């Protein structure tokens, strides 16, 4: 197990290295000159030239790349071209905002998705099953920005239940310590703000969690159906064991492996879905950070932002793989 983990970690190095290479050259292949974008429409020819030089963008690409990698090894993610701020120093608040949102989205998605999938499987071909699967289909195909705006309209404007934008009530702001506001409010013992923060998380959490929720529901359902046809479940049901026990004690563990795979992949994909959600809900996360950087051709921010996201993605995958073994003792990693 340990050997496997170490091997997997070592394998990450070439993967991430390859990724930096691809991203580095891909973003430079897009037309659009960072100096021009930074200086705006008003820029003169000389200004653009001298800024390009100052930013080191006049160097050959391979030299720029070597510099970038060298800096990475010293933990330096580079400097934003646009704001001249040090990326290592400013990236955490963005990342924290997205992690908090993704986690909530995932909790919603897993909780509802898995349970809806189980019920659908158990009452196969019932009205619940049909409704849930139609909803899942709708959920997968619904554009996130439309869903987000509809949520705002329904829950903030019409019902006035939940706030529509931001992470907190800014009239009564949270003091950021870890930048994970759920934790920050608890540390400071501010329960009123803790509730506010949760309220701010719900709508974007649902918007971001809808697609994974639908996928997880369908996966759970098909996986459960398969398990429920197996002998041991039939035996259990024949013995008159209640549904709850059959599902949660006997079947779920066996049905969970493919679901886990989906959860792992979706978790990684959330970071992409976050761009739209963060834009609609005015959420200061890493999706928007990278998206803005792409618009401004802020190369270092794009490179390092994507790198960080990729690292998280591969780690989630590793954790998922290790969880297989924990769930199913037949799976061995040697």
């Amino acid at each position, binding site marked *: 197990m340990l050997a496997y983990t170490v091997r997997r970690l070592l394998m990450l190095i070439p993967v991430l290295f390859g990724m930096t290479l691809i991203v580095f050259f891909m973003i430079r292949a897009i037309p659009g000159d960072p100096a*021009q974008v930074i200086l*705006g429409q008003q820029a003169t020819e000389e200004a653009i030239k001298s800024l390009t030089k100052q930013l080191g963008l006049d160097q050959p690409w391979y030299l720029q790349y070597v510099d970038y990698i060298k800096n990475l090894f010293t933990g330096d993610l580079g400097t934003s071209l646009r704001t001249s701020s040090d990326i290592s120093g400013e990236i955490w608040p963005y990342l924290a905002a997205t992690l908090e949102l993704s986690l909530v989205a995932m909790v919603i998605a897993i909780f509802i998705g898995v349970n809806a999938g189980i019920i659908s499987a158990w009452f196969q071909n019932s009205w619940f099953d049909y409704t849930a699967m139609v909803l899942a289909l709708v959920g997968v195909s619904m554009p996130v920005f439309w869903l987000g705006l509809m949520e705002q*309209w329904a829950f903030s404007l019409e019902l006035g239940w939940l706030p529509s934008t931001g992470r907190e009530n800014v009239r009564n702001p949270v003091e950021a310590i870890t930048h994970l506001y759920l934790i920050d409010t608890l540390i400071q013992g501010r329960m009123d703000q803790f509730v506010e923060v949760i309220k701010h998380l719900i709508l974007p959490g649902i918007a971001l969690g809808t697609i994974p929720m639908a996928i997880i529901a369908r996966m759970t359902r098909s996986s459960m159906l398969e398990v429920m046809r197996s002998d041991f479940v039939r035996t259990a049901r024949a013995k008159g064991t209640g549904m709850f026990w059959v599902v949660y004690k006997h079947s779920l563990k066996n049905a969970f492996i493919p679901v886990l795979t989906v959860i792992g992949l979706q978790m990684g994909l959330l970071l992409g879905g976050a761009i739209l959600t963060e834009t609609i809900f005015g959420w200061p996360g890493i999706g928007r950070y990278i998206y803005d950087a792409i618009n401004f051709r802020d190369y270092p921010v794009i490179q390092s932002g994507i790198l960080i996201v990729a690292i998280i993605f591969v780690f989630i995958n590793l954790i998922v793989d290790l969880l297989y073994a924990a769930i199913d003792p037949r799976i061995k990693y040697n």
Partner: protein
Amino acid sequence: MKKTIYSLVFVLLLSIGLAGCGGSNETNGNGGGDSEGGEASGGTLIFGRGGDSVSLDPASVTDGESFKVTKNIFDTLLDYGDDNTDVQEALAKDWEVSEDGKTYTFTLREGVKFHDGTDFNADAVVYNFERWMNGTEEAFYYYKSMFGGFKGDEGHVIESVTATDDYTVEFKLKRPQAPFLKNIAMSPFAIASPDALEKQGDKFGENPVGTGPFVFDQWSRNDKIVLNKNEDYWMEGYPKLDSVIFRAIPDNSARLNALMAGEIDLMDGLNPSDVQQVEDNPDLQTFFRPSMNVGYLGLTTNRGPLKDKLVRQALNHAVDKQALIDSFYAGQAEPAKNPMPPVIGGYNDEIEPYEYDVEKAKELLKEAGYEDGFEMELWAMPVPRPYMPDGQKVAEVLQKNFAEIGVKAEIKSYEWATYLEKARNGEADSFLLGWTGDNGDADNFLYVLLDQDNIGSNNYTYYENQELHDILIEAQSTPDEEERNKLYAEAQEIIHEDAPWIPLVHSKPALGGKSSIEGFTPHPTGSDKLTKVTIE
């Protein structure tokens, strides 16, 4: 079965979330009003906008989102009028210009303090100008663009800035510069605390210190910037608000939702199509920014049939501007006939616009030898701007207009950065674009956008006219306003005749706010000083 119901209930509970915790308490306008002192609370104003600031050091930025904030932290020597670009006193309470237009003497306001408690005086002004003069274009873009360069540069207009006593500053110029006072009033030339500049160094943009109506408190990027009342502001009885919070909410519709839900009090970037909705809401009101912009279709003068002046005039006659305004600007714009809006001094109102006249257009095409029309590309802006809320749709209407005279326009669009780069390189036949003025001066429109000096920079149409060039250069150093306006009137005639553009509209960008907001006057420059604003 029971368990099924349990899990169903669970699912439901979770999806409704904690809605049961009662309504959101963000809807009261005075929340968090822990105001110090015994005075009545002036409340908090939350201003929602489309993006975050880049930096809060106004000298080093070029983006409007930064100036919107710095304008409230800093003061300039002179300021613009509340809703126009006439100069008036600010940190300087008086100024004199010498006969030859080369010496400006400013008398400064006394007893003003920076937010860090240090004194504002003549030395502070000199310090700031010295900082910019010894800078580089990358660091202080606007300084170069307005004053022609830096120390030692040929084009640099300022010879020296000296403190003749504690509260008098003398500017000596190498040659007269007509818009000098208007430039001095621009946001980038705000006076910062020398002490803080020394202490903060590179970090000044994150910890700005000025003399303005509001003091910087905190900034969490892409989220919010908080400013608090400057209790010692030099303007007696102002500012009224306890604090101002700028929030970044990128999506226009989402920002409107936040306004209607009471999470923000004021927003800019209101879609023209949403204006009616805000006006119909008794709790809200609309504001319209006086127009200092122009939206246009550039006709690249060195490409194909567009080389011919007659063809460009024909295209001008083919466009129904009023229809565009009714459809895409909610009527909140006026049709353009010149490259600059009427609010700018020197606007030539004698110009006869190219009437919408399909027959006339066809005749001109025939005269030019294109009786059967021709094909060209029409580029549509991919991003909304105040002067062009929906480039794609405007392009479609223009396409239809042109089709009526036999000109087949193929609509193309690129991502914004690419669009600008390609247009700058002259790769577009025709392209939609626009401009918002910096300092309210004609030079900032005509010379910047249409002079041959700016081909490869902001003159994307590659339009060249020596006669025009001579007039524009002469106007730059003509201190006499009347004389200058004559020159600009002439310049607009030449441009009208040569028709390098189809000037489309001067739009009045819309803002929405709570109906209890008073004293808010949107400024033509696009950044608003919130000194006089109150909110219930």
